[in-house]
């Protein structure tokens, strides 16, 4: 057990009513060093979101160990050391943008975690003009920026993001990726990022965890040795494309390693 990394050892989880021979997560071993940006990628059903929720302490598991910086996921949440950005922005529609961003500081005060100034956070995501607006007045990209600002608000030790940009158009998505990297470099937190976009994983990560489905396993862990900061030049360079091809090849072999999904029509 080490306090400078997230350690997942032999993690196995079968959903109630699921096939016990094909667990959602099957013997997952994973190490994520502090301040690293790690992406989980894989075909649907590979358990990447489930793994994220187990690390977040939102779901239990059958066997194995999960320690987050020497602590349990539950204790991390008690200390308000975990930030979560779900797939949908999950804002409270009756609160304006500023109060949504400052929500974490008003909940579970006992943890006594100081938080960033909400106006400062909104400036970082470029939404200082929208502080008094309500979620229904914002576009999808703006809402997701609010959710990111909210998650960064407590300066969490661990930031968990579950396909946060999957519902956005490509242009907005790329802009938000660079904005996220910028914030991450300022705040230097550990990020676990679930995605199904190869390009997104390569753009953002230090390491990419490729997973295979049925059962959910870690297929391969690929390092991303692109220089930081990752500006537009780095992201459009030839090395980037080589890495993308490498991840795609790995995903292909992960796909072949797992059993075909039941709902796929046989050829």
């Amino acid at each position, binding site marked *: 057990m080490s306090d400078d990394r997230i350690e997942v050892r032999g993690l196995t989880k079968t959903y109630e009513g699921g096939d016990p021979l094909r667990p959602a997560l099957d013997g997952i071993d994973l190490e994520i060093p502090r301040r690293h940006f790690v992406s989980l990628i894989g075909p649907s059903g590979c358990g990447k979101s489930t793994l994220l929720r187990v690390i*977040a302490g939102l779901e239990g598991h059958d066997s194995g160990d999960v320690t987050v910086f020497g602590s349990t996921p539950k204790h991390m949440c008690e200390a308000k050391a975990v930030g979560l950005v779900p797939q949908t922005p999950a804002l409270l529609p*009756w609160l304006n943008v500023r109060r949504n961003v400052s929500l974490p500081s008003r909940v579970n005060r006992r943890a006594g975690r100081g938080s960033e100034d909400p106006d400062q956070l909104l400036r970082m995501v470029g939404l200082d003009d929208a502080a008094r607006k*309500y979620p229904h007045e914002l576009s999808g990209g703006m809402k997701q920026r609010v959710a990111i600002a909210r998650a960064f608000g407590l300066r969490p030790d661990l930031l968990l993001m579950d396909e946060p940009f999957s519902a956005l158009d490509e242009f907005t998505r790329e802009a938000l990726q660079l904005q996220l990297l910028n914030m991450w470099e300022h705040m230097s937190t550990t990020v676990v990022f679930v995605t199904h976009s190869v390009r997104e994983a390569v753009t953002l990560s230090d390491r990419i965890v490729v997973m295979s489905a049925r059962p959910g396993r870690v297929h391969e862990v690929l390092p991303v040795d692109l220089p930081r900061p990752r500006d537009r030049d780095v992201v459009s360079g030839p090395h980037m494309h080589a890495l993308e091809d490498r991840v795609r090849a790995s995903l292909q072999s992960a796909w072949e390693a797992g059993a075909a999904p039941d709902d796929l029509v046989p050829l």
Partner: protein
Amino acid sequence: MATSTPARPRPGHEAHPHRRAPRRRRLGLGIGLWLPTAVAVVLFGFAWSAIAEDQPYLLPPLAEVGAVLVEDPALFLDNAWSTLSIALSGVACGAGTAFVLSLLMSEIPLLRRAIMPMAVVLNVTPVVALAPALVVAFGFGMTPKVIVTAIITFFPVLINVTTGLRSVSVPVLHVFSTLHASRMEVLFRLRIPSSLPYTLAALRVVFPLSIVGAVVAEFVAAGSSSGLGTMIRNSAATARLEYVYAAVACLAAMGVLMLALITVLERRLLFWHESQQRPTS
């Protein structure tokens, strides 16, 4: 606490460009919206008058109904107030109890299983049948009438608030979980505000229903001395139809006022909810 947040007046909101455009458009549409209603009302009036002239025992002439109202407005106001106070007290008791019970049931599943079946039985019991017994038990004062109204308004609120408290989006719950929010924090910051649209929808049903409850209770409590229901019963017994319909008109006006009040409340409290958003072209 959390419920009070949306009610805050929002300065600067008026200046929002998206808000102003539809308002102007609504004014433009005004005639188109009101004209069909106005025409229908006038036609209805003519039909009424035609019948009233032919068969005065079927419907009283509208002029007589109006005259009765104008002659002694205090009579109608007093009786209306009597009925209204029963209706409102009934709603306060019935809806209030239902709201508190919903909160308790959402937190304690055991209580839910204990109360829900009884509430369903209470709902299918015809309250009109219960009313005479209540009069025997509580006399001719306000108490039995308030109880009847409370029973009628109880169930819709109970069902709606219970549903509303459970209609919380899972991702938001996950965010609250990672913050290790307490049950009370989830209840007050998340569940109660989420249930507001359901609560107000229930009030929209229950307020007019409360008038029905009050009138029925007045019908049954033979010795009651005031109220529009009493007035209708006594006037009908002596075939003074103009008084009956004047009282009915008062009841209708009370119902409309209540609905208007709920609409205003919805606009204020639910400005964030889908139901209050107008489609932007």
